[in-house]
């Protein structure tokens, strides 16, 4: 349990770093953000593996389907999209300290995963590339609201704030919908539904400065970059160029409480588990001994 706690802590710290890097002077540091995502991935992998062990010991009354879903966590390949995706997902209540994140679809997992609501996303087949799914979700997000789950003390109930319309709604049973997409599916009765995984292209904030300045097509000879060429390319479109409206939506998610809500959920959960300020990193893979917050004095 302690190790899972540490992984959670690392996850929240990492997300905070990514968030703060966006306002750093000099622009986003690609190298640092890349390393932070590796930590995120490692922490998540550890956390998930810990939880999957725990769920194997869950009491029999728990919904078999939910247990099955929790076990369907896909290994991350380290791509930015996957990482950001998982950490901006929904969570379904205080009583569960597991992440009911919509895991990434792997080629082996056909349909029973998180893309249930937004029809555009749900219709993306598992064999589709992530980019395609991303595009589908983006066309969705173009008209949609970004909805942030705000933790509600009541189990299975969330208060959702629509950032575009500023409408507050309360949803139950983990059902979480986007009002842009055509036919939102009805939640299955009695089951904890996994809501639509909001697929975010983290290249927004991890970076591609070049989405304004398209790259040169690689040619098998020494490339000469002249100032004339650069001016021409400014006018061409880039495969990575994205709708600025989507960017502003993402920024509002990160800036107006999305991340802090997430982090505050972390804190609440952690305080319930540990009443102390001591953090002990007893990762099974680490040989180091415990250390205390005293190091913060530096």
């Amino acid at each position: 349990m302690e190790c899972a706690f540490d992984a959670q802590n690392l996850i929240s710290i990492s997300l905070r770093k990514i968030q703060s890097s966006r306002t750093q002077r000099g622009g986003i540091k690609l190298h640092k953000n890349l390393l932070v995502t590796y930590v995120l991935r490692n922490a998540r992998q550890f956390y998930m593996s810990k939880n999957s062990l725990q769920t194997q010991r869950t009491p029999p009354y728990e919904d078999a389907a939910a247990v099955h879903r929790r076990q369907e966590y896909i290994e991350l390949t380290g791509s930015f999209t996957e990482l950001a995706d998982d950490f901006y997902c929904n969570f379904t209540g205080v009583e569960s300290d597991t992440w009911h994140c919509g895991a990434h679809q792997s080629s082996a997992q056909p349909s029973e995963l998180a893309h249930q609501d937004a029809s555009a996303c749900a219709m993306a087949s598992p064999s589709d590339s992530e980019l395609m799914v991303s595009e589908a979700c983006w066309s969705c997000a173009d008209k949609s609201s970004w909805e942030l789950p705000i933790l509600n003390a009541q189990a299975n109930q969330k208060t959702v704030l629509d950032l575009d319309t500023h409408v507050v709604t309360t949803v139950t049973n983990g059902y979480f919908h986007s009002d842009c997409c055509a036919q939102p599916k009805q939640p299955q009765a009695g089951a904890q539904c996994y809501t639509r995984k909001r697929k975010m292209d983290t290249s927004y904030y991890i970076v591609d400065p070049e989405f304004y300045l398209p790259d040169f097509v690689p040619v098998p000879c020494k490339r000469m970059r002249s100032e004339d060429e650069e001016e021409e390319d400014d006018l061409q479109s880039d495969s990575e160029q994205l709708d600025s409206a989507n960017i502003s939506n993402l920024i509002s998610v990160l800036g107006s409480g999305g991340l802090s809500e997430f982090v505050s959920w972390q804190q609440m959960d952690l305080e319930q588990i540990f009443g102390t300020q001591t953090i002990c990193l007893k990762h099974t893979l680490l040989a180091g001994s415990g250390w205390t917050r005293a190091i913060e004095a530096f």
Partner: protein
Amino acid sequence: ADVISTVEFNQTGDLLATGDKGGRVVIFQRETEEAGEVGDSGEYNVYSTFQSHEPDFDYLKSLEIEEKINKIRWLPQQNAAHFLLSTNDKTVKLWKVSERDKRPEGYNLKDEEGRIKDVSTITSLRVPVLKPTDLMVEVRPRRVFANGHTYHINSISVNSDGETYLSADDLRINMWHLDITDRSFNIVDIKPANMEDLTEVITAAEFHPHHCHLFVYSSSKGTLRLCDMRASALCDRHTKLFEEPEDPGSRSFFSEIISSVSDVKFSHSGRYLLTRDYLTAKVWDLNMDKGPVETYQVHEYLRSKLCSLYENDCIFDKFECVWNSSDSVIMTGAYNSFFRMFDRETGRGVTLEAWRENSKPRAVLRTRRVYTGGKRRRGDVGVDSLDFTKKILHMAWHPEENIIAIAATNNLYIFQDRVNPDAQTQ
């Protein structure tokens, strides 16, 4: 004084340039030795100061461009003037540093203050003559190499051909000709077609000291790639890949971070490579790519503190490493104003401290120790007492003598080995 961000001796060691976070470059010059005082090397005094880079703004991307000087590299001297390259995140500049100790006097149309004379007062013509004057050091920008990089420049390296240099950012390496500013050749590009597939970035790059066709670049994954420009114009495929297999037993949350190479330097001989990652310094033989031939633990006691170092961002610190002139000693920085030297022949390391209160001028540096267990000696510093804000990231070693320049935040320390002033005798 601002935080020093780079230190570099020129090829003779007479000049020492420092760059800081405010975009300023300060050049120190070694005082000429007094005749007869053998072994008493001159001190370094300020020679010139100039503003190299100013804060800039990319309007297209709404990004501020820091003026911090990331690297300075001197060009080989070809005439009386000195040339150096300085770079911030986006732009490389070539500066000419020249001395003037004469000025022309006796103009016909201007008076001594430069005011135009009344023509009617001129009754005769004279030839202006050069008269000695106080020494003036002039620094002028001669070239500006702009718009070559989309990502942040982390390295520049002058080629041994004396005509070209490379600049490296996170994903690309460009080669420039020193006389041509509107074009550069892209020689390495590791940007994936889909940025989501990005797994590593370039962290440092350097030309071989003797072979103008060879260069090396390090990555955030801990690998080194030696590239030969004769093989192909685009060196995306390396000639040699230097990689050490990861020890599965030491895997942690931070394995990727601590394996990222922060600096790479060729030895003066050109046979070895010196790399620095977060906890170690490694020497590689160009003839062996399976792993380093020597590994030096710089501050292994930090391995159990990685989580807090991650929290306070110290784990992202990029330490530099340097060779001495004979390639027998390597040096790198640490925390608490400590820096470490390792003798390659014996494998032994020594910890020294660059801290004003503890060292008076001409005082001998005493070795320090970090207490990690066992018998505690007087003067040992506990790991929990280390000051992580005092970090030695940048340093330089004189190309011929045992003189080192250590940048400690906004202070520059210059130490000399008076016992063995010449590297050859070590």
